[in-house]
């Protein structure tokens, strides 16, 4: 098909203080196609979408819509040009009715104000285009399921006669049947000529629905492929930036661990899960063991870690610490049982910006003692001295506000915070992300040393070679569940892990097609 693209983005660059979010990226959308945007964390997917929809302004590059150069200064302008977006959080108003949400901002106005009958009629028409003609527009939005709410959000696009529909992580909260229904509608819209930009980290779904795929990595354009021209394993390797041969060469230097696994594990989780975050999962961690969680963005690694720490409350399952059933409902519980969790999001969950390095370092220890038993100055100084030197924090000034330190040094201080609690199990979530190479090596070394000293470590990283290099055992997660476990040894390579992730259930992909035929 030789149709011209309806949206063409050329040479797009956007820079924020300290980071180039997009670097000379090209992207195009064709009418009547589902085009998926892929990339790991920091790849620039959401930045690209926000550049298209008028949330961010471009530093350089052009955007052509239907051949005309456009610069959108607001989401309203982008909508007026026919570009509709449905975000993961379903940006609708739960306190209003279905019909109102569909028509918000476009209600039918007559001489005496809004004509609700006509407005609701138009709403029903828009909903009918998605097969929801029977849905009563007068129902409160909160009375229908999330899956239906998402379709309501999409029907807003019908109201503005959108030519481009952007779906940002639309399936995160949907079950299999709801996903199939959504895909039916996506295909229908595609066949009607709408250009659909689909963003999702569920690889199976991306492969099932897309006609075209674009991969971004670290803000740069990696490649645009037609679906038939690329296979999954190659796609994943493009996303993580290593080709398959290189992955094969990334082996483990670990001898096959001769670990006695008959002893009581330090931590056992049986069927632990949380709705919308993680399917019921089993996992063991033994004393002094280094367990790596491998998987792509959104596979559920952080969610599992949070449940093991107590940061989130599980909906199902049980946790046993040293064989004893325990309730880990708050981080304070986790710390009490000797578990520490270094989060991946250090800005929101980690640093307390205005407090000093010293205060950030001792916070967890102090929280464990309660407010009435302050840590004596002498002990504070010891902790400060020990960890600032061990982790090589620069500048080594304990009285500086932590927000003045670089990202890498902040990360080290946070690591020190958790180490100071002398945990039996330390969970490290992306400990080396976004920090310089030197600091990375230092932290990796530290982790290996701690494990050697008897601490159990769960190591989560998107960099597969890191996981392979450091873990004794590797747990592989995908799409919110565990797909496999590998005991590390000389024959284990990163490619094996990639293939575990790339494995898919063939029947799931064929089901929608057969329904269509019938």
């Amino acid at each position: 098909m030789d149709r011209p693209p309806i949206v063409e983005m050329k040479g797009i660059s956007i820079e924020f203080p300290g980071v180039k979010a997009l670097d000379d990226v090209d992207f195009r959308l064709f009418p009547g196609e589902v085009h998926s945007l892929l990339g790991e964390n920091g790849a620039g997917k959401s930045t690209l979408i926000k550049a298209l929809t008028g949330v961010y302004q471009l530093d350089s590059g052009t955007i052509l819509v239907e051949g005309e150069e456009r610069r959108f200064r607001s989401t309203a302008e982008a909508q007026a040009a026919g570009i509709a977006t449905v975000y993961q959080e379903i940006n609708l108003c739960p306190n209003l009715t279905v019909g109102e949400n569909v028509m918000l901002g476009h209600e039918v106005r007559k001489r005496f104000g809004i004509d609700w009958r006509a407005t609701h009629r138009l709403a029903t028409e828009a909903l009918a285009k998605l097969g929801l003609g029977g849905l009563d527009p007068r129902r409160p939005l909160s009375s229908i399921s999330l899956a239906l709410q998402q379709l309501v959000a999409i029907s807003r696009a019908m109201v503005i006669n959108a030519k481009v529909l952007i779906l940002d992580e639309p399936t995160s909260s949907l079950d299999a049947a709801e996903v199939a229904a959504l895909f039916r509608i996506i295909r229908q819209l595609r066949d009607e000529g709408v250009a659909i930009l689909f963003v999702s980290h569920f690889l199976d779904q991306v492969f099932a629905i897309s006609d075209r795929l674009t991969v971004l990595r670290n803000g740069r354009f990696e490649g645009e492929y037609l679906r038939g021209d690329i296979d999954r394993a190659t796609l994943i390797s493009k996303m993580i930036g290593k080709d398959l041969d290189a992955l094969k060469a990334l082996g483990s230097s670990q001898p096959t661990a001769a670990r006695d696994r008959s002893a009581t594990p330090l931590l056992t989780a049986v069927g632990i899960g949380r709705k919308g975050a993680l399917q019921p999962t089993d996992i063991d961690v033994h004393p002094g063991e280094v367990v790596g969680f491998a998987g792509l963005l959104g596979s559920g690694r952080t969610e599992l870690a949070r449940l093991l720490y107590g940061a989130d409350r599980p909906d199902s399952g049980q946790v046993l610490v040293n064989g004893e059933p325990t309730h880990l409902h708050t981080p304070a519980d986790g710390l009490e049982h000797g578990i520490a969790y270094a989060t991946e999001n250090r800005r929101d969950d980690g640093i307390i910006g205005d407090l000093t390095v010293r205060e950030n370092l001792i916070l967890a220890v102090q929280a464990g003692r309660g407010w009435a038993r302050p840590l004596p100055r002498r002990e504070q100084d010891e902790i400060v001295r020990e960890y600032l030197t061990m982790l090589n924090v620069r500048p080594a000034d304990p009285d500086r506000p932590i927000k003045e330190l670089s990202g890498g040094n902040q990360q080290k201080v946070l690591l020190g915070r958790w180490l100071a609690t002398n945990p039996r199990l330390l969970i490290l979530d992306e400990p080396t992300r976004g920090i310089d190479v030197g600091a990375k090596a230092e932290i990796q070394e530290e982790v290996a040393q701690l494990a050697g000293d008897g601490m159990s470590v769960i190591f989560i990283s998107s960099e597969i070679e890191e996981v392979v290099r450091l873990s004794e055992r590797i747990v592989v997660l995908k799409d919110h569940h565990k797909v496999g476990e590998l005991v590390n040894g000389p024959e284990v390579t990163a490619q094996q892990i990639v293939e575990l992730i790339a494995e898919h259930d063939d029947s799931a992909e064929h089901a929608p097609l057969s329904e269509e035929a019938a």
Partner: protein
Amino acid sequence: MNNRARSWVSGVVRRQYFWGIVGILVLLMLNTIKKPDYLAITMNPATGNLAGNLIDILRAAAPILMIAIGMALVIATGGIDLSVGSLMVVAGAVSMEFLKAAGDASSVGAMLGALGLALALSGILGAVNGVLVSVVGLQPFVTTLVMMLAGRGVAKVITSGQNTSASNDPFRWIANGYLFGLPAVFLIAIAIVVLVSLVVRRSALGLMIEAIGINPQASRMAGVKPRGLIISVYTIGGVLAGIAGVFAVSSAMTVDVSRTGYQIELDAILAVVIGGTALIGGKFSLGGATVGAMLIATLDKTVVFLGVSSSATPAFKAAVIIVICLLQSKRVRTFISRRRARGTPPPRPVEPLPVRKEEVPA
């Protein structure tokens, strides 16, 4: 000026309550212009007590000081307490009624009883605020707004609507007596400020209050438990408001159920923000709040002294709060910092998404 002196000066200037001290000096200067011997302090040869305008300011500052300290702690956690004035009048009402019933004008026991009852009641009401905010999850301004209304009602019910008076010399001494030549009430207030500062800074209370004010999510992840902290902070605020109420009624030995503590929450908020604590919560400064309270006392006295109608002061104070809110707002701060960094290009306009402070489960 050599480098060392220059950096010392800039360090002092950057201390947030520097401007508060400047404000006090400016006001005193205005008064001195009108009456050159304004600052004169005389000593009564018989009693050794000092007298003078400055002494009056110290005496007037005592209740404001108590409320400002309590408010600083509450604001630091990201909350607010609009009920402090009403808790004052409750404490005042209960102490006057108790002393009136006790009868004995010289009984120290009666005075202690009145004190204990007043502080217990205001403390309990403060704890109620804390529980409603941290356990039930009500917004602080709604909770304390209701308590503000209901509290004054409680005071009126206690006194049956009357402005109760009582006689008790030990109690009266609190606001009228002298220690080492200075007004006792001021010395007691300073002692309490020092005590609270020690408790807050020597224990981990201050650290944890600041942590949950700055980043409640990260604090929770670090194992901090917010519930007990918040209840404590509002309770302390309640007790301090009770002490302020005792100071207020002790001076004339009468409680004015309509006027005592009326609009004093404005003074407290102003004192706290002048002293360098941001309204949004986080790092707080008790020293700064002290300076702020002294400034307000000086302002009140100056207004009267200069002959300006005292009814103008609330409007003026409100205007100052508005200006400080503007200065603390992000938009103005980025504007100022953009002006300072002349070399860098202006930041790209990004469509601001409204950010709501995360509600963190206790």
